[in-house]
Protein backbone atom coordinates (compact mmCIF):
# COMPACT_ATOMS: atom_id res chain seq x y z
CA UNK A 1 0.00 0.00 0.00
CA UNK A 2 1.34 3.36 -0.91
CA UNK A 3 2.57 5.61 1.86
CA UNK A 4 0.22 8.43 0.81
CA UNK A 5 -2.80 6.15 1.15
CA UNK A 6 -1.70 5.05 4.61
CA UNK A 7 -1.39 8.70 5.63
CA UNK A 8 -4.92 9.48 4.46
CA UNK A 9 -6.47 6.33 5.95
CA UNK A 10 -4.89 7.08 9.35
CA UNK A 11 -5.79 10.79 9.12
CA UNK A 12 -9.41 9.79 8.46
CA UNK A 13 -9.31 7.36 11.38
CA UNK A 14 -7.93 10.07 13.68
CA UNK A 15 -10.70 12.49 12.68
CA UNK A 16 -13.26 9.75 13.27
CA UNK A 17 -11.75 9.14 16.71
CA UNK A 18 -11.84 12.85 17.56
CA UNK A 19 -15.48 13.08 16.50
CA UNK A 20 -16.59 9.92 18.30
CA UNK A 21 -14.69 10.32 21.54
CA UNK A 22 -15.89 12.42 24.44
CA UNK A 23 -13.17 15.00 23.94
CA UNK A 24 -15.13 16.55 21.05
CA UNK A 25 -18.25 16.89 23.17
CA UNK A 26 -16.18 18.49 25.95
CA UNK A 27 -14.66 20.95 23.48
CA UNK A 28 -18.06 21.82 21.98
CA UNK A 29 -19.55 22.43 25.42
CA UNK A 30 -16.61 24.61 26.53
CA UNK A 31 -16.74 26.58 23.30
CA UNK A 32 -20.47 27.15 23.45
CA UNK A 33 -20.15 28.34 27.06
CA UNK A 34 -17.32 30.70 26.16
CA UNK A 35 -19.08 32.07 23.07
CA UNK A 36 -22.33 32.59 24.98
CA UNK A 37 -20.58 34.36 27.83
CA UNK A 38 -18.67 36.55 25.40
CA UNK A 39 -21.86 37.37 23.47
CA UNK A 40 -23.47 38.48 26.71
CA UNK A 41 -20.32 40.39 27.71
CA UNK A 42 -20.05 42.25 24.41
CA UNK A 43 -23.74 43.04 24.52
CA UNK A 44 -23.35 44.53 28.03
CA UNK A 45 -20.18 46.37 26.95
CA UNK A 46 -22.17 48.12 24.28
CA UNK A 47 -25.11 48.87 26.58
CA UNK A 48 -23.20 50.06 29.66
CA UNK A 49 -20.57 52.12 27.93
CA UNK A 50 -22.80 53.85 25.46
CA UNK A 51 -20.91 57.08 26.25
CA UNK A 52 -17.66 55.78 24.68
CA UNK A 53 -16.35 57.49 21.62
CA UNK A 54 -16.17 55.23 18.56
CA UNK A 55 -12.40 55.00 18.97
CA UNK A 56 -12.62 54.05 22.64
CA UNK A 57 -15.29 51.47 21.90
CA UNK A 58 -13.10 49.88 19.21
CA UNK A 59 -10.11 49.71 21.51
CA UNK A 60 -12.23 48.11 24.23
CA UNK A 61 -13.71 45.67 21.74
CA UNK A 62 -10.24 44.80 20.37
CA UNK A 63 -8.90 44.08 23.84
CA UNK A 64 -11.86 41.98 24.90
CA UNK A 65 -11.88 40.14 21.57
CA UNK A 66 -8.23 39.18 22.05
CA UNK A 67 -9.01 38.07 25.59
CA UNK A 68 -11.80 35.80 24.39
CA UNK A 69 -9.66 34.53 21.52
CA UNK A 70 -7.03 33.62 24.09
CA UNK A 71 -9.68 31.54 25.82
CA UNK A 72 -10.49 29.84 22.54
CA UNK A 73 -6.85 29.14 21.79
CA UNK A 74 -6.54 27.69 25.29
CA UNK A 75 -9.46 25.34 24.61
CA UNK A 76 -7.88 24.34 21.29
CA UNK A 77 -4.53 23.83 23.03
CA UNK A 78 -5.98 21.68 25.83
CA UNK A 79 -8.18 19.73 23.45
CA UNK A 80 -5.52 18.91 20.88
CA UNK A 81 -2.77 18.27 23.43
CA UNK A 82 -5.00 15.79 25.24
CA UNK A 83 -6.03 14.23 21.92
CA UNK A 84 -2.51 14.06 20.51
CA UNK A 85 -1.03 12.44 23.62
CA UNK A 86 -3.39 9.49 24.00
CA UNK A 87 -3.62 8.94 20.31
CA UNK A 88 -0.04 7.62 19.98
CA UNK A 89 1.15 6.69 23.46
CA UNK A 90 -2.26 5.35 24.49
CA UNK A 91 -2.50 3.13 21.43
CA UNK A 92 0.97 1.77 22.05
CA UNK A 93 0.19 1.15 25.73
CA UNK A 94 -3.20 -0.47 25.16
CA UNK A 95 -2.07 -2.65 22.25
CA UNK A 96 -4.28 -1.02 19.59
CA UNK A 97 -1.09 -0.08 17.72
CA UNK A 98 0.06 -3.71 17.46
CA UNK A 99 -2.51 -4.84 14.91
CA UNK A 100 -2.23 -1.60 12.90
CA UNK A 101 1.58 -1.52 12.77
CA UNK A 102 1.83 -5.11 11.51
CA UNK A 103 0.00 -4.13 8.34
CA UNK A 104 2.23 -3.26 5.37
CA UNK A 105 2.62 0.34 6.53
CA UNK A 106 5.59 2.51 7.43
CA UNK A 107 5.60 3.84 10.97
CA UNK A 108 6.40 7.33 9.68
CA UNK A 109 3.28 7.20 7.48
CA UNK A 110 1.10 6.26 10.45
CA UNK A 111 2.57 9.11 12.50
CA UNK A 112 2.11 11.59 9.65
CA UNK A 113 -1.48 10.43 9.24
CA UNK A 114 -2.16 11.00 12.94
CA UNK A 115 -0.60 14.44 12.70
CA UNK A 116 -2.59 15.38 9.60
CA UNK A 117 -5.85 14.23 11.19
CA UNK A 118 -5.13 16.24 14.34
CA UNK A 119 -4.12 19.34 12.33
CA UNK A 120 -7.37 19.20 10.34
CA UNK A 121 -9.37 18.72 13.54
CA UNK A 122 -7.57 21.46 15.52
CA UNK A 123 -7.60 23.96 12.67
CA UNK A 124 -11.24 23.19 11.90
CA UNK A 125 -12.15 23.90 15.50
CA UNK A 126 -10.17 27.15 15.63
CA UNK A 127 -11.66 28.43 12.38
CA UNK A 128 -15.28 27.53 13.23
CA UNK A 129 -15.17 28.75 16.84
CA UNK A 130 -13.04 31.82 15.97
CA UNK A 131 -15.31 32.83 13.13
CA UNK A 132 -18.30 32.42 15.46
CA UNK A 133 -16.64 34.77 17.91
CA UNK A 134 -15.89 37.37 15.22
CA UNK A 135 -19.52 37.28 14.08
CA UNK A 136 -20.69 37.76 17.69
CA UNK A 137 -18.45 40.81 18.09
CA UNK A 138 -19.65 42.23 14.81
CA UNK A 139 -23.30 41.73 15.78
CA UNK A 140 -22.94 43.19 19.29
CA UNK A 141 -20.47 46.07 19.01
CA UNK A 142 -20.03 46.37 15.26
CA UNK A 143 -16.29 45.69 15.27
CA UNK A 144 -14.67 43.64 12.49
CA UNK A 145 -10.92 42.94 12.74
CA UNK A 146 -8.57 44.12 9.98
CA UNK A 147 -7.14 40.70 9.00
CA UNK A 148 -9.53 37.97 10.23
CA UNK A 149 -8.25 35.25 7.86
CA UNK A 150 -4.60 35.80 8.80
CA UNK A 151 -5.53 35.84 12.49
CA UNK A 152 -7.45 32.58 12.29
CA UNK A 153 -4.67 30.97 10.22
CA UNK A 154 -2.11 31.97 12.86
CA UNK A 155 -4.33 30.55 15.63
CA UNK A 156 -4.55 27.32 13.63
CA UNK A 157 -0.75 27.38 13.26
CA UNK A 158 -0.41 27.81 17.03
CA UNK A 159 -2.64 24.77 17.58
CA UNK A 160 -0.58 22.83 15.04
CA UNK A 161 2.67 23.67 16.87
CA UNK A 162 1.22 22.52 20.17
CA UNK A 163 -0.23 19.26 18.89
CA UNK A 164 3.05 18.48 17.14
CA UNK A 165 4.75 18.92 20.51
CA UNK A 166 2.10 16.66 22.09
CA UNK A 167 2.73 14.01 19.42
CA UNK A 168 6.51 14.23 19.88
CA UNK A 169 6.15 13.85 23.66
CA UNK A 170 3.68 10.98 23.32
CA UNK A 171 6.19 8.89 21.36
CA UNK A 172 8.54 8.94 24.36
CA UNK A 173 6.41 9.38 27.51
CA UNK A 174 3.05 8.17 28.79
CA UNK A 175 -0.20 9.56 27.34
CA UNK A 176 -1.32 11.60 30.35
CA UNK A 177 2.15 13.00 30.99
CA UNK A 178 2.52 14.09 27.38
CA UNK A 179 -0.74 16.08 27.52
CA UNK A 180 0.20 17.70 30.81
CA UNK A 181 3.74 18.56 29.71
CA UNK A 182 2.51 20.01 26.39
CA UNK A 183 -0.08 22.23 28.07
CA UNK A 184 2.43 23.17 30.79
CA UNK A 185 5.01 24.25 28.21
CA UNK A 186 2.32 26.17 26.34
CA UNK A 187 1.43 28.08 29.53
CA UNK A 188 5.08 28.60 30.46
CA UNK A 189 5.86 30.11 27.04
CA UNK A 190 2.92 32.46 27.33
CA UNK A 191 4.05 33.61 30.77
CA UNK A 192 7.63 33.94 29.51
CA UNK A 193 6.23 36.11 26.72
CA UNK A 194 4.48 38.36 29.26
CA UNK A 195 7.67 38.50 31.35
CA UNK A 196 9.57 39.51 28.23
CA UNK A 197 7.07 42.33 27.60
CA UNK A 198 7.51 43.60 31.14
CA UNK A 199 11.27 43.54 30.55
CA UNK A 200 10.80 45.62 27.43
CA UNK A 201 8.56 48.08 29.23
CA UNK A 202 11.13 48.65 31.94
CA UNK A 203 13.97 48.73 29.45
CA UNK A 204 15.60 45.64 30.92
CA UNK A 205 17.11 43.74 27.96
CA UNK A 206 17.94 40.66 30.09
CA UNK A 207 14.32 40.14 31.10
CA UNK A 208 13.10 41.02 27.60
CA UNK A 209 15.35 38.25 26.27
CA UNK A 210 13.29 35.68 28.21
CA UNK A 211 10.32 36.31 25.95
CA UNK A 212 12.38 36.21 22.78
CA UNK A 213 14.14 32.96 23.67
CA UNK A 214 10.96 31.21 24.79
CA UNK A 215 9.25 32.32 21.57
CA UNK A 216 12.02 30.65 19.61
CA UNK A 217 12.00 27.44 21.67
CA UNK A 218 8.25 26.95 21.35
CA UNK A 219 6.60 29.18 18.74
CA UNK A 220 3.07 29.02 20.27
CA UNK A 221 3.34 32.41 22.02
CA UNK A 222 4.88 34.16 19.00
CA UNK A 223 2.14 32.89 16.71
CA UNK A 224 -0.48 33.89 19.27
CA UNK A 225 0.92 37.44 19.31
CA UNK A 226 0.77 37.52 15.52
CA UNK A 227 -2.86 36.40 15.65
CA UNK A 228 -3.69 39.12 18.20
CA UNK A 229 -2.12 41.70 15.94
CA UNK A 230 -4.40 40.62 13.10
CA UNK A 231 -7.52 40.86 15.26
CA UNK A 232 -6.91 44.21 16.97
CA UNK A 233 -7.75 47.65 15.67
CA UNK A 234 -4.83 49.14 13.66
CA UNK A 235 -5.29 52.47 15.46
CA UNK A 236 -4.00 50.90 18.70
CA UNK A 237 -0.41 51.23 17.51
CA UNK A 238 -0.65 54.96 18.13
CA UNK A 239 -1.04 54.42 21.88
CA UNK A 240 2.28 53.43 23.46
CA UNK A 241 0.44 52.97 26.77
CA UNK A 242 -1.05 49.71 25.47
CA UNK A 243 2.33 48.19 24.76
CA UNK A 244 2.45 46.37 28.07
CA UNK A 245 -0.94 44.66 27.73
CA UNK A 246 -0.56 40.89 27.40
CA UNK A 247 -3.67 40.90 25.22
CA UNK A 248 -2.45 43.35 22.61
CA UNK A 249 0.45 43.09 20.21
CA UNK A 250 2.14 46.07 18.65
CA UNK A 251 4.03 44.48 15.76
CA UNK A 252 3.04 41.94 13.10
CA UNK A 253 4.94 38.67 12.66
CA UNK A 254 7.96 38.61 10.40
CA UNK A 255 8.24 36.14 7.53
CA UNK A 256 11.40 34.82 9.18
CA UNK A 257 9.48 33.92 12.33
CA UNK A 258 6.78 32.17 10.29
CA UNK A 259 9.53 30.28 8.47
CA UNK A 260 11.07 29.29 11.81
CA UNK A 261 7.68 28.08 13.08
CA UNK A 262 7.24 25.89 9.99
CA UNK A 263 10.76 24.55 10.41
CA UNK A 264 10.09 23.93 14.11
CA UNK A 265 7.02 21.84 13.25
CA UNK A 266 8.98 19.90 10.62
CA UNK A 267 11.84 19.27 13.05
CA UNK A 268 9.53 18.16 15.88
CA UNK A 269 7.64 15.87 13.52
CA UNK A 270 10.91 14.44 12.21
CA UNK A 271 12.13 13.80 15.75
CA UNK A 272 8.82 12.16 16.65
CA UNK A 273 9.18 9.98 13.54
CA UNK A 274 12.70 8.93 14.55
CA UNK A 275 11.68 8.18 18.14
CA UNK A 276 8.67 6.18 16.94
CA UNK A 277 10.72 4.29 14.34
CA UNK A 278 13.21 3.11 16.95
CA UNK A 279 10.66 2.23 19.60
CA UNK A 280 9.84 -1.38 20.48
CA UNK A 281 6.08 -1.86 20.53
Amino acid sequence: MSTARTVFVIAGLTLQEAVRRRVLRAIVVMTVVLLTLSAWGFYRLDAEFGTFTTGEARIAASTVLNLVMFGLSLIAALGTAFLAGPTMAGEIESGIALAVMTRPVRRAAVLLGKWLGLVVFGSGFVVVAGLGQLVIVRATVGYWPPHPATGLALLAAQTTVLLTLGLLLSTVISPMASGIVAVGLFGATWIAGVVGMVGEAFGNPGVAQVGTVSRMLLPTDGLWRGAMHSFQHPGLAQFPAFEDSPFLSMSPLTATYLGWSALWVALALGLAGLAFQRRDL
Partner: protein
Amino acid sequence: MTTDHTARPAAGTALDVADHLLATLPPASAVWCSGLRKRYRRQTAVDDVSFTVARGEVLGLLGPNGAGKTSVIKILLGLVRPDAGEVLLLGRPGTDPQARRRVGYLPELFRYQPWLTAAEVLDLHVRLAGAAVPDAERRDCLALVGLADRAGDRVGGFSKGMQQRLGLAVALVARPELVVLDEPTSALDPLGRADVRDLLLSLKTRQVAVLLNSHLIGEVERVCDRVVILDKGRVAAAGTLPELLGQRELRLRLDGVGAPAEARLAAAGRLTRDGDGYTVALPADPDPTTVPDLVADLVALGVRVHAVEPGHISLEERLLDILRTGSSEEHR
Protein backbone atom coordinates in the same frame (compact mmCIF):
# COMPACT_ATOMS: atom_id res chain seq x y z
CA MET B 1 22.77 1.84 -33.22
CA THR B 2 23.28 -1.73 -34.35
CA THR B 3 24.52 -2.84 -30.96
CA ASP B 4 21.52 -1.21 -29.42
CA HIS B 5 19.19 -3.12 -31.70
CA THR B 6 20.82 -6.45 -31.06
CA ALA B 7 21.37 -5.90 -27.35
CA ARG B 8 17.74 -5.22 -26.53
CA PRO B 9 16.17 -8.49 -27.58
CA ALA B 10 19.07 -10.34 -25.98
CA ALA B 11 18.50 -8.54 -22.68
CA GLY B 12 14.79 -9.19 -23.04
CA THR B 13 15.36 -12.91 -23.46
CA ALA B 14 17.71 -13.04 -20.51
CA LEU B 15 15.08 -11.32 -18.36
CA ASP B 16 12.41 -13.69 -19.62
CA VAL B 17 14.62 -16.63 -18.76
CA ALA B 18 15.25 -15.20 -15.30
CA ASP B 19 11.51 -14.59 -14.81
CA HIS B 20 10.77 -18.11 -15.90
CA LEU B 21 13.39 -19.49 -13.54
CA LEU B 22 11.98 -17.43 -10.66
CA ALA B 23 8.43 -18.52 -11.47
CA THR B 24 9.39 -22.18 -11.45
CA LEU B 25 11.25 -21.94 -8.13
CA PRO B 26 9.35 -23.28 -5.17
CA PRO B 27 7.79 -20.41 -3.17
CA ALA B 28 9.96 -19.04 -0.36
CA SER B 29 9.22 -20.17 3.19
CA ALA B 30 6.45 -18.36 5.03
CA VAL B 31 8.92 -17.47 7.81
CA TRP B 32 12.68 -17.75 7.82
CA CYS B 33 14.67 -16.30 10.67
CA SER B 34 18.26 -16.71 11.66
CA GLY B 35 20.33 -15.79 14.69
CA LEU B 36 17.71 -13.53 16.33
CA ARG B 37 18.95 -11.82 19.48
CA LYS B 38 17.29 -9.27 21.73
CA ARG B 39 18.30 -7.86 25.10
CA TYR B 40 16.11 -5.66 27.27
CA ARG B 41 18.57 -3.81 29.48
CA ARG B 42 20.35 -6.64 31.30
CA GLN B 43 17.81 -9.31 30.48
CA THR B 44 18.39 -11.48 27.42
CA ALA B 45 14.95 -12.15 25.98
CA VAL B 46 15.93 -13.87 22.74
CA ASP B 47 19.27 -15.61 22.22
CA ASP B 48 20.29 -16.95 18.82
CA VAL B 49 16.87 -18.17 17.68
CA SER B 50 16.56 -19.59 14.16
CA PHE B 51 13.72 -21.52 12.59
CA THR B 52 11.62 -21.82 9.46
CA VAL B 53 7.88 -22.14 8.82
CA ALA B 54 7.19 -23.73 5.44
CA ARG B 55 4.25 -22.68 3.27
CA GLY B 56 1.06 -24.28 4.49
CA GLU B 57 2.72 -25.57 7.63
CA VAL B 58 1.38 -25.12 11.16
CA LEU B 59 4.24 -24.48 13.57
CA GLY B 60 3.70 -24.45 17.31
CA LEU B 61 5.86 -22.25 19.51
CA LEU B 62 6.01 -23.67 23.03
CA GLY B 63 7.82 -22.77 26.20
CA PRO B 64 7.36 -21.55 29.75
CA ASN B 65 6.44 -17.97 30.67
CA GLY B 66 9.24 -15.58 29.83
CA ALA B 67 10.84 -17.99 27.36
CA GLY B 68 10.81 -15.26 24.69
CA LYS B 69 7.95 -16.53 22.53
CA THR B 70 6.13 -13.20 22.22
CA SER B 71 9.44 -11.37 21.72
CA VAL B 72 10.31 -13.69 18.82
CA ILE B 73 6.89 -13.10 17.25
CA LYS B 74 7.24 -9.33 17.64
CA ILE B 75 10.68 -9.40 16.05
CA LEU B 76 9.32 -11.41 13.10
CA LEU B 77 6.56 -8.84 12.57
CA GLY B 78 8.84 -5.79 12.83
CA LEU B 79 7.29 -4.55 16.09
CA VAL B 80 10.54 -5.04 17.99
CA ARG B 81 14.00 -4.36 16.54
CA PRO B 82 16.35 -7.29 17.08
CA ASP B 83 19.91 -6.60 18.23
CA ALA B 84 21.07 -9.16 15.68
CA GLY B 85 19.62 -11.61 13.20
CA GLU B 86 17.66 -11.67 9.98
CA VAL B 87 14.01 -12.24 9.12
CA LEU B 88 12.36 -13.14 5.83
CA LEU B 89 8.56 -13.17 5.64
CA LEU B 90 7.10 -14.84 2.54
CA GLY B 91 10.45 -14.33 0.83
CA ARG B 92 10.87 -10.61 1.59
CA PRO B 93 13.15 -9.06 4.20
CA GLY B 94 11.25 -8.31 7.42
CA THR B 95 12.48 -4.69 7.39
CA ASP B 96 10.37 -4.05 4.27
CA PRO B 97 6.76 -3.28 5.28
CA GLN B 98 5.58 -4.95 2.07
CA ALA B 99 6.76 -8.27 3.55
CA ARG B 100 3.64 -8.11 5.77
CA ARG B 101 1.18 -7.62 2.88
CA ARG B 102 -0.09 -11.18 3.20
CA VAL B 103 0.42 -11.63 6.94
CA GLY B 104 -2.34 -11.70 9.54
CA TYR B 105 -1.57 -11.23 13.25
CA LEU B 106 -3.51 -11.71 16.45
CA PRO B 107 -1.45 -10.14 19.26
CA GLU B 108 -1.34 -11.54 22.77
CA LEU B 109 -2.51 -8.10 23.92
CA PHE B 110 -5.50 -7.71 21.62
CA ARG B 111 -7.26 -4.35 21.63
CA TYR B 112 -9.10 -2.67 18.79
CA GLN B 113 -10.32 0.91 18.35
CA PRO B 114 -13.21 1.04 20.87
CA TRP B 115 -14.90 3.87 18.97
CA LEU B 116 -15.26 1.76 15.81
CA THR B 117 -17.76 -0.99 15.09
CA ALA B 118 -16.54 -4.53 14.41
CA ALA B 119 -17.25 -4.13 10.69
CA GLU B 120 -15.36 -0.81 10.62
CA VAL B 121 -12.32 -2.41 12.26
CA LEU B 122 -12.24 -5.00 9.48
CA ASP B 123 -12.70 -2.28 6.82
CA LEU B 124 -9.75 -0.37 8.30
CA HIS B 125 -7.49 -3.40 8.19
CA VAL B 126 -8.51 -4.29 4.63
CA ARG B 127 -7.65 -0.72 3.58
CA LEU B 128 -4.32 -0.74 5.44
CA ALA B 129 -3.42 -4.10 3.89
CA GLY B 130 -4.20 -2.68 0.45
CA ALA B 131 -6.28 -5.77 -0.27
CA ALA B 132 -9.41 -5.96 -2.41
CA VAL B 133 -11.81 -7.90 -0.22
CA PRO B 134 -15.51 -7.64 -1.14
CA ASP B 135 -18.08 -6.77 1.53
CA ALA B 136 -19.60 -10.24 1.54
CA GLU B 137 -16.21 -11.79 2.29
CA ARG B 138 -15.67 -9.40 5.23
CA ARG B 139 -19.05 -10.37 6.64
CA ASP B 140 -18.20 -14.06 6.17
CA CYS B 141 -15.02 -13.44 8.11
CA LEU B 142 -16.99 -12.02 11.05
CA ALA B 143 -19.44 -14.91 10.81
CA LEU B 144 -16.53 -17.37 10.89
CA VAL B 145 -15.54 -16.11 14.36
CA GLY B 146 -19.14 -15.94 15.54
CA LEU B 147 -19.60 -12.15 15.40
CA ALA B 148 -22.03 -11.94 12.46
CA ASP B 149 -24.79 -10.37 14.55
CA ARG B 150 -22.45 -7.90 16.28
CA ALA B 151 -20.96 -6.37 13.10
CA GLY B 152 -22.60 -2.99 13.72
CA ASP B 153 -21.76 -2.76 17.45
CA ARG B 154 -18.96 -0.62 18.85
CA VAL B 155 -15.91 -2.60 19.95
CA GLY B 156 -15.90 -0.62 23.22
CA GLY B 157 -18.84 -2.71 24.43
CA PHE B 158 -17.26 -6.07 23.58
CA SER B 159 -16.17 -8.62 26.19
CA LYS B 160 -12.58 -9.85 26.17
CA GLY B 161 -13.59 -13.06 24.44
CA MET B 162 -15.46 -11.16 21.76
CA GLN B 163 -12.49 -8.86 21.21
CA GLN B 164 -10.27 -11.91 20.78
CA ARG B 165 -12.72 -13.31 18.24
CA LEU B 166 -12.63 -9.96 16.44
CA GLY B 167 -8.82 -10.17 16.54
CA LEU B 168 -9.00 -13.53 14.78
CA ALA B 169 -11.24 -12.01 12.10
CA VAL B 170 -8.74 -9.11 11.70
CA ALA B 171 -5.90 -11.62 11.29
CA LEU B 172 -7.83 -13.55 8.64
CA VAL B 173 -9.63 -10.81 6.70
CA ALA B 174 -6.96 -9.69 4.22
CA ARG B 175 -6.49 -13.17 2.67
CA PRO B 176 -3.24 -13.94 4.46
CA GLU B 177 -0.67 -16.52 3.38
CA LEU B 178 0.83 -16.50 6.88
CA VAL B 179 -1.14 -16.13 10.11
CA VAL B 180 0.63 -15.44 13.40
CA LEU B 181 -1.51 -16.20 16.44
CA ASP B 182 -0.16 -15.30 19.87
CA GLU B 183 -2.21 -17.13 22.51
CA PRO B 184 -5.37 -17.10 20.37
CA THR B 185 -7.57 -18.83 22.95
CA SER B 186 -6.46 -17.05 26.14
CA ALA B 187 -9.83 -15.31 26.61
CA LEU B 188 -12.08 -17.91 25.01
CA ASP B 189 -14.49 -20.40 26.59
CA PRO B 190 -14.20 -24.13 25.73
CA LEU B 191 -16.57 -23.67 22.80
CA GLY B 192 -14.44 -20.83 21.47
CA ARG B 193 -11.33 -22.98 21.81
CA ALA B 194 -12.93 -25.71 19.75
CA ASP B 195 -13.87 -23.07 17.13
CA VAL B 196 -10.25 -21.91 16.96
CA ARG B 197 -9.07 -25.49 16.54
CA ASP B 198 -11.47 -25.97 13.60
CA LEU B 199 -10.27 -22.66 12.19
CA LEU B 200 -6.65 -23.76 12.39
CA LEU B 201 -7.45 -27.02 10.65
CA SER B 202 -9.32 -25.17 7.89
CA LEU B 203 -6.30 -22.84 7.43
CA LYS B 204 -4.13 -25.92 7.15
CA THR B 205 -6.31 -27.37 4.38
CA ARG B 206 -6.18 -24.02 2.57
CA GLN B 207 -2.35 -24.16 2.68
CA VAL B 208 -2.11 -21.03 4.87
CA ALA B 209 1.00 -21.16 7.04
CA VAL B 210 0.36 -20.65 10.75
CA LEU B 211 2.72 -19.72 13.56
CA LEU B 212 0.91 -20.58 16.77
CA ASN B 213 2.02 -19.63 20.26
CA SER B 214 -0.11 -21.37 22.83
CA HIS B 215 0.06 -22.60 26.40
CA LEU B 216 -2.50 -25.25 25.61
CA ILE B 217 -0.26 -28.14 24.67
CA GLY B 218 -3.19 -30.35 23.72
CA GLU B 219 -4.22 -27.74 21.17
CA VAL B 220 -0.71 -27.59 19.73
CA GLU B 221 -0.41 -31.36 19.63
CA ARG B 222 -3.65 -31.70 17.73
CA VAL B 223 -3.04 -29.14 14.98
CA CYS B 224 0.70 -28.51 14.61
CA ASP B 225 2.94 -30.17 12.05
CA ARG B 226 6.07 -29.04 13.81
CA VAL B 227 7.00 -27.60 17.17
CA VAL B 228 9.74 -25.23 18.34
CA ILE B 229 10.34 -25.25 22.08
CA LEU B 230 11.89 -22.10 23.52
CA ASP B 231 13.46 -21.89 26.95
CA LYS B 232 15.27 -18.87 28.40
CA GLY B 233 15.32 -17.25 24.96
CA ARG B 234 16.97 -20.19 23.22
CA VAL B 235 15.61 -22.99 21.04
CA ALA B 236 15.57 -25.95 23.43
CA ALA B 237 14.17 -28.37 20.88
CA ALA B 238 12.60 -28.33 17.44
CA GLY B 239 11.14 -30.92 15.14
CA THR B 240 8.04 -32.67 13.88
CA LEU B 241 5.81 -34.23 16.51
CA PRO B 242 6.98 -37.83 15.82
CA GLU B 243 10.59 -36.64 15.97
CA LEU B 244 10.06 -34.87 19.27
CA LEU B 245 7.87 -37.48 20.88
CA GLY B 246 10.27 -40.14 19.65
CA GLN B 247 9.45 -43.71 20.45
CA ARG B 248 6.19 -45.26 21.43
CA GLU B 249 5.95 -48.06 23.96
CA LEU B 250 3.92 -51.21 24.53
CA ARG B 251 2.90 -52.17 28.06
CA LEU B 252 1.97 -55.83 28.65
CA ARG B 253 0.81 -57.83 31.68
CA LEU B 254 1.91 -61.43 31.29
CA ASP B 255 2.53 -64.58 33.25
CA GLY B 256 4.21 -67.83 32.40
CA VAL B 257 7.04 -66.03 30.62
CA GLY B 258 9.90 -68.41 29.93
CA ALA B 259 13.35 -67.64 28.57
CA PRO B 260 12.31 -68.02 24.88
CA ALA B 261 9.32 -65.67 25.41
CA GLU B 262 11.56 -63.12 27.13
CA ALA B 263 13.98 -63.35 24.18
CA ARG B 264 11.05 -62.76 21.78
CA LEU B 265 10.02 -59.66 23.77
CA ALA B 266 13.56 -58.31 23.81
CA ALA B 267 13.74 -58.83 20.04
CA ALA B 268 10.77 -56.44 19.57
CA GLY B 269 12.49 -53.60 21.43
CA ARG B 270 14.23 -52.53 24.62
CA LEU B 271 12.56 -54.47 27.44
CA THR B 272 11.95 -53.39 31.03
CA ARG B 273 10.23 -55.56 33.60
CA ASP B 274 8.35 -54.70 36.79
CA GLY B 275 6.76 -57.78 38.38
CA ASP B 276 4.34 -59.20 35.81
CA GLY B 277 4.40 -55.92 33.88
CA TYR B 278 6.60 -55.77 30.82
CA THR B 279 7.29 -52.61 28.80
CA VAL B 280 8.69 -52.80 25.29
CA ALA B 281 9.99 -49.65 23.63
CA LEU B 282 8.90 -49.48 19.99
CA PRO B 283 10.25 -47.27 17.20
CA ALA B 284 8.45 -43.97 16.48
CA ASP B 285 6.61 -45.37 13.49
CA PRO B 286 6.23 -49.12 14.15
CA ASP B 287 5.16 -51.56 11.47
CA PRO B 288 1.39 -52.20 11.84
CA THR B 289 2.06 -55.94 12.15
CA THR B 290 4.62 -55.61 14.98
CA VAL B 291 2.18 -55.75 17.88
CA PRO B 292 -0.19 -58.53 16.60
CA ASP B 293 2.81 -60.65 15.54
CA LEU B 294 4.40 -60.25 18.96
CA VAL B 295 1.20 -61.25 20.77
CA ALA B 296 0.66 -64.30 18.49
CA ASP B 297 4.26 -65.44 19.07
CA LEU B 298 3.93 -65.01 22.86
CA VAL B 299 0.73 -67.06 22.92
CA ALA B 300 2.43 -69.75 20.84
CA LEU B 301 5.26 -69.81 23.41
CA GLY B 302 2.69 -70.62 26.14
CA VAL B 303 2.55 -67.12 27.69
CA ARG B 304 -0.79 -66.09 29.22
CA VAL B 305 -1.59 -62.53 28.07
CA HIS B 306 -3.68 -60.46 30.54
CA ALA B 307 -3.33 -57.00 28.99
CA VAL B 308 -1.72 -55.30 25.99
CA GLU B 309 -1.70 -51.51 26.10
CA PRO B 310 -0.04 -49.27 23.54
CA GLY B 311 1.62 -46.33 25.30
CA HIS B 312 2.00 -42.87 23.87
CA ILE B 313 4.33 -40.24 25.28
CA SER B 314 2.36 -36.98 25.30
CA LEU B 315 3.84 -33.68 24.15
CA GLU B 316 3.28 -32.35 27.64
CA GLU B 317 5.48 -35.07 29.20
CA ARG B 318 8.10 -34.48 26.55
CA LEU B 319 8.01 -30.70 27.03
CA LEU B 320 8.39 -31.00 30.80
CA ASP B 321 11.20 -33.49 30.28
CA ILE B 322 13.03 -31.13 27.91
CA LEU B 323 12.56 -28.10 30.15
CA ARG B 324 13.63 -29.98 33.30
CA THR B 325 16.71 -31.59 31.87
CA GLY B 326 17.56 -28.41 29.97
CA SER B 327 19.16 -30.50 27.24
CA SER B 328 19.36 -28.54 24.05
CA GLU B 329 21.69 -29.90 21.40
CA GLU B 330 20.41 -33.44 21.57
CA HIS B 331 16.90 -32.53 20.44
CA ARG B 332 17.71 -30.12 17.65
